[in-house]
């Protein structure tokens, strides 16, 4: 098991030298006091996260761990290059599957996997999206197993969330430990909202005159990520709208204001495809805007991320991302995929069923850590039940080896102890190119030995430092 702070000899690795000194000089009582202060700060600011299946406090805080996770400048350079490469390929894939379909014609990705995938939106076929960008904000989840071993665990091309925690974690860290932070030499991340706005404005429809009007579209305050939606709108200085605030007239989209209707050019939507437009998708959706897709087709408005972008982050399509990189870019992937068995293939399924106790099995359409089996931690009965599910609908499952995720020192009840982490960097694609803010959201599994970092499953977060080179 690879610990990011302490090497096998017990000495701290170079990027963590400052953290090690800082921790040495900080008694646990002091950490406890700061942790309480952090919790008060978060609650005050109102950063909460609702978890659907849980009773109790509907406005639960995501636990915040005080000890930052650190990446060296060299480590980050590699990750950044890999992220840009991968996002570029994912975007090219989306443009291709809704356009000429070359990758399927070349036999690199099975046509059935794409065309019969629920994530595939027929309405997008032949639609020219502004700027040619589909996945404006991508969250690429990375895990680490060794000093130089980074794997992409999954891509999130629809509406990845968590960036507000990345930003607020930094604010809280700087507020709690200003001196320490000032000395550490950390790349700033506060520019993210500005970068996002610029990126969104860059994909405004060609018809738009003057400065494009951007809005953030939210399902409303009972959505688990509502805080983030309002935070981003606020930081970008744009309106946070709900479906009822928008109206389509004469093929264009308008927002209802105190001065009447005003034109909207770019919608950064944080609601799922199915709820966007009751005329096209779910007719019972009260969250969407009737006629929106029609306006989109006419090129009157940009929607970020594009409708149908979910086909690129399907867990069965994931297997083909390295192939996409070779096909579209003619390059070798910089970031590796986790080896993956597709249960839809008979020989691979047989292997999976035989080795359930060693594997992690995921639903191809699942997200948020729901509907997965962690073989080594499951009971025999759970494995048997899961095997039945796989046999009933093999296409719906993939399996991966149980990776030994890296650990970082984390402040838990018993003191400072190693806990498993992952990393979700946020990749912005605009008409001008791709940007990544240095770092991302580090999620940490707070229970000892647990590999599940999802906040919906009791995971926490850490501030993530990329050191200046």
């Amino acid at each position, binding site marked *: 098991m690879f610990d990011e702070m302490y090497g096998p000899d017990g000495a701290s690795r170079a990027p963590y030298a400052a953290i090690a000194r800082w921790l040495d000089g900080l008694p646990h009582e002091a950490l406890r006091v700061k942790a309480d202060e952090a919790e008060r700060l978060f*609650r005050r600011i109102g950063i909460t996260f609702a978890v659907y299946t849980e009773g109790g406090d509907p406005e639960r805080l995501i636990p915040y761990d005080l000890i930052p996770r650190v990446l060296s400048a060299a480590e980050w350079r590699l990750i950044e290059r890999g992220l840009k490469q991968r996002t570029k390929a994912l975007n090219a894939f989306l443009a291709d599957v809704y356009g000429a379909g070359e990758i399927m014609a070349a036999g690199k990705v099975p046509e059935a996997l794409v065309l019969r995938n629920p994530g595939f939106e027929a309405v997008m076929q032949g639609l020219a999206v502004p700027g040619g960008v589909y996945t404006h904000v991508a969250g690429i989840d990375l895990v680490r197993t060794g000093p130089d071993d980074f794997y992409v665990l999954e891509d999130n091309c629809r509406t990845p969330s968590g960036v507000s925690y990345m930003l607020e974690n930094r604010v809280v860290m700087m507020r709690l430990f200003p001196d320490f932070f000032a000395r550490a030499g950390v790349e700033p991340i506060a520019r993210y909202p500005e970068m996002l706005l610029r990126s969104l404005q860059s994909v405004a429809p060609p018809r738009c005159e003057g400065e494009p009007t951007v809005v953030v579209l939210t399902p409303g305050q009972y959505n688990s990520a509502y805080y983030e939606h309002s935070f981003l709108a606020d930081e970008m200085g744009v309106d946070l709208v709900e479906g*009822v605030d928008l109206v389509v007239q004469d093929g264009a989209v308008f927002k209802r204001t105190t001065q009447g209707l005003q034109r909207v050019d770019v919608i950064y939507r944080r609601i799922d495809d199915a709820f966007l437009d009751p005329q096209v998708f779910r007719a019972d959706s009260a969250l969407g805007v009737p006629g929106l897709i029609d306006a989109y087709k006419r090129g009157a408005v940009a929607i970020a991320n594009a409708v149908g972008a979910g086909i690129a982050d399907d867990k069965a399509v994931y297997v083909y991302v390295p192939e996409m990189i070779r096909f579209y870019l003619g390059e070798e992937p910089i970031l590796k995929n986790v080896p993956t068995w597709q249960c839809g293939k008979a020989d691979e399924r047989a292997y999976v069923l035989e080795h359930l106790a060693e594997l992690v099995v995921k639903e191809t359409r699942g997200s948020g850590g729901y509907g997965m089996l962690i073989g080594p931690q499951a009971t025999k009965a759970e494995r048997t039940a899961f095997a039945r599910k796989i046999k009933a609908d093999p296409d719906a499952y993939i399996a991966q080896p149980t990776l030994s995720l890296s650990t970082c020192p984390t402040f838990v009840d018993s003191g400072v102890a190693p806990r498993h982490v992952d990393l979700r960097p946020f990749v912005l694609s605009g008409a001008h190119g791709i940007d990544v803010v240095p770092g991302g959201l580090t999620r940490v599994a707070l229970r000892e030995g647990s590999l599940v970092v999802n906040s919906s499953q009791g995971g926490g977060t850490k501030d993530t430092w990329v050191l200046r080179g």
Partner: protein
Amino acid sequence: MLARAAESLFWLARYMERMDNVARLVEAAQSMSGMSETADEWRSALVASGCDEGYFEKHDELTQAQALLYLTRDPDNPSAILSCLDRARTNARAMRTALTSDMWDAVNASWLDARRLTPDDFTPGRIGETIDWVKTVGTRFYGAYAGTMLRNEIYWFTRLGTFIERADNTARILDVKYHLLLPRDEGVGGAVDYYQWTSILRAVSAVRAYQAVYRTEVKPWNIADLLILRPEMPRSLRACYDNIEEALDQITETHGGRRGECHRLAGSIAAGLRYGRIDDVFARGLHEYLTEVIERTALLGLELNAFYMR
């Protein structure tokens, strides 16, 4: 700004103001309970806050304990103090981006504090302290927005909410109390005792203001004058409408002069208050006069909604 944002801010301010007003009514009723055997004070508090119908749907009789509970923390009562705070926060949360952090903090921190209150805090022995806390919440909110908001639309829609609610409340308190205390056949200056008259003033925290303005014993006539026509009395109808007009003028200016029925109506009510005389009010009948103000204020709320919040 978004029409829905204007609506949320308007209602945020209305609920914070309503919370404050209900707290003052409870305080006034509570302070009178020691002097009277009947529950009349509680009846007037229920009527003045518009809670009487809801109360009697739920309870057959009027008792001090039940009225106190209903006005402060009964979740079935949308105007109960805690319900107001809850609704204010829901509106604030819907428009987080429009609020300054101090404003959000004033609402959110108070809401968090309120969740820690126990039924004990609402018993007659403890209610005084709790009401004091509620009043500081109202003051803190008012101070936060007066002190930190840019003077733009967001601010002026918030002001509209505060003063529409306050105008409605002042008119109701005056109407209810006046009639409770002054039966039809009893002339002004009748046998009703001094403490009861001052209870109107207490309900709007104006005992000292009265003394400062009139420098004489409490007279019903003056009380009406103070609460209707006096511009220097911050809860008077005149002061409320001066503020409503100012807010509307400011909004109109940023909107390039766009006006509608709500502007005409507000101007008409404000002019009546500015140029009115208390003799004429009484000649017409105080109750009739106040009923009209309450109705026209409600209508103004609807017109504002139709013009700005749709």
